[in-house]
């Protein structure tokens, strides 16, 4: 589904990704770990289409076509979703309204018809229940006054409603307590299927106990230096990253 080929990227002259290659097939869950500054969040932003970065070499192929020229909304409409590390707030825009707008934009791109508030409300309520969130949250302004944990759960809720094909989770576990972690993991796991893929970016192995990956990659200095299965994560937990940093 996704193939990143020898990607080189920099921002303001500083090289961040230096020849990153990665292949993710349908139905797979990949995890990326690595020390701070290795380029994990940069990778997430670039995949989502943030324009701050210069791609100096390489390509990103999604479903057979290069997406380098596509705008963020176009990529989203093709089924790419990013659960942000730091979700932003939009005062005055209710969660319910935002979710519906997002849903309708993507649904329309897939050939569907926009949903009216009542219809959408029904759909949203099921997912909200699953994520053990309160109904009242729909009326609150987007992420305004939310705790860190609530923001992360809101990201997963959006993911559950938008049903993307490729979901990128950027350090979703940071700031979550065990309970929240389990809820979030359940949410993600409920979306796992033969058609969907996940790229879970994380610092700590703990999340991977709940969202068990098929592959684990280690990112150091903008390149993947080692790949393995879930046991690699455990190895990193005990040894740290230094044995991989040349």
């Amino acid at each position: 589904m996704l193939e990143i080929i020898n990607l080189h990227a920099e921002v303001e002259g500083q090289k961040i990704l230096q020849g990153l290659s990665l292949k993710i097939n349908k139905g797979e869950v990949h995890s990326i770990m690595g020390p701070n500054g290795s380029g994990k969040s940069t990778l997430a932003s670039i995949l989502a289409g943030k324009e701050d970065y210069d791609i100096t070499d390489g390509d990103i192929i999604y479903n057979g076509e290069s997406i380098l020229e596509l705008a963020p909304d176009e990529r989203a409409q093709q089924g790419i979703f990013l659960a942000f590390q730091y979700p932003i707030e939009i005062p005055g825009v209710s969660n319910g309204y935002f979710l519906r707008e997002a849903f309708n934009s993507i649904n329309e791109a897939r050939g569907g018809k926009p949903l009216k508030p009542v219809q959408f409300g029904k759909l949203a309520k099921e997912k909200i229940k699953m994520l053990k969130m309160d109904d009242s949250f729909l009326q609150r302004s987007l992420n305004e006054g939310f705790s860190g944990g609530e923001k992360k759960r809101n990201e997963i809720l959006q993911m559950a409603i938008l049903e993307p094909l490729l979901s990128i989770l950027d350090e979703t576990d940071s700031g979550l307590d065990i309970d929240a972690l389990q809820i979030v993991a359940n949410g993600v796991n409920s979306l796992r299927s033969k058609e969907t893929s996940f790229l879970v970016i994380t610092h700590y192995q703990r999340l991977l106990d709940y969202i068990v990956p098929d592959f684990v990659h280690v990112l150091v200095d903008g390149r993947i230096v080692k790949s393995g299965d879930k046991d690699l994560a455990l190895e990193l937990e005990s040894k740290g990253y230094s044995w991989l940093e040349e």
Partner: protein
Amino acid sequence: MIFLYKILLQIILETRASSRGGYQGMTEELKIDNDQATKEMLEKNEYKYGFVTDIEQEIIPKGISEEVINFISKKKKEPKWLLDFRLKAYDKWLKMKEPSWAKLNIEPIDYDGISYFAAPKEMPKSLDDIDPEIIDTYNKLGIPLEEQKQLEGIAVDVVFDSVSLVTTFKDKLAKLGIIFCSFSEAVENHEELVKKYLGRVIPSGDNYFAALNAAVFTDGSFVYIPKGVKCPMELSTYFRINAEDTGQFERTLIIAEEGSSVSYLEGCTAPKRSTSQLHAACVELIAFDDATIKYSTIQNWYPGDKDGKGGIYNFVTKRGNCVGKNSRISWTQVETGSSITWKYPSCILTGDNSVGEFYSVALTNNRQQADTGTKMIHLGKNTKSTIVSKGISAGHGQNIYRGLVEVSKNASNARNYTVCDSILIGENCGAHTFPYIEVKNTTAQLEHEATTSKVGEDQIFYCQQRGMSEEDALSLIVNGFCKEVFKELPFEFAVEAERLLSVSLEGSVG
């Protein structure tokens, strides 16, 4: 006399020739500013009302003088007292100086370079008589005049340049005792009412532009709601400036007798011109005991091009007097157009327990400047006022909020709640706030909140990542910001306002 007619003929012929080559809406090329990677300087501002209507009009020679005033008054067949009213105002105006305290950067106005009267040559007696070009104009503006197509539930008074062409549903309303007609018609058929109330809320000497208006006002709307009647329809006036080098000086008077209520909406557009046009209106509202007047404006005058050339100067005096106990006057405005806006819809809270409200969204983009706000004057006991001002600045726009909350010595238990928020889009715009509070009674309670924030690329990116286009994202963010004000608008117009904001913001993402 004959000399004057010869000149008129000449002017008419010349104007016909020049107005034939009307402007069409033009989309300008996208320009991408590489300095700020995140900021796309799209100055595309598709003002779709920029077209000109080509009809035969009578436009008097430019310049202001007693002669011009006499001409206007005579043309409208006004009684002597009204001519005197005008001449007294003109006299005052000559002695006054143009105000300069507003933080505005304006080219000096040439008062003699404007014509003070423009009207279609043939005044229509019924809808059938109206020049088809004009009917077409209003169709394009979304205000069908033809009987079958008239907007249900909204009575419209159509003002084209200096005259009111038609007022729909007038007879239906008359059966309830409601008078809704053009100001000129009110002078003709309801002289006593006009004489009683004209100038009571805004005396001619109040300010420079009010004096000018009192001298040369042409037409506007007149509304009278009798005791205990709740007006069953939205009343609306649609102003369209068409002729070149003319000013529009309308005068509106709304009177709500005891226990009555009315909701009134004012809409305005004007064609694209390369030189500026002056719009100096006066709106007076009077609410008696237990009466309510709701006055909403969606102002979309031509804002000028991206360099600030052309565009309407919108200098308006709007004031409501809550004369009666328990009366209420609400002003709701969405100002997206005009190149310079200068207005402070205000409420004088005379009656005990009266309520004044002001809800405003003011948008400035490209080179627009707006100095707008309100004055709430608390005179009676237990009076309440609410001010919600939302300013959106984009491009090189300058947005100024100027508000006054005044509590007089005898105004016990006055309450005011003011919230004044600004958002800035891009790096080159400005928002300034000048709140004035003058309290002379110790039982008053006033609350003031203000926030300023910038629409960040991060917010836009977040929305895009959820499938929304850049423009939809901005629209979402801005509409969320304006929600509190939009919900005060009559439903049909709330939708219009949201759309208008989206169009006006086109190309301002930063």
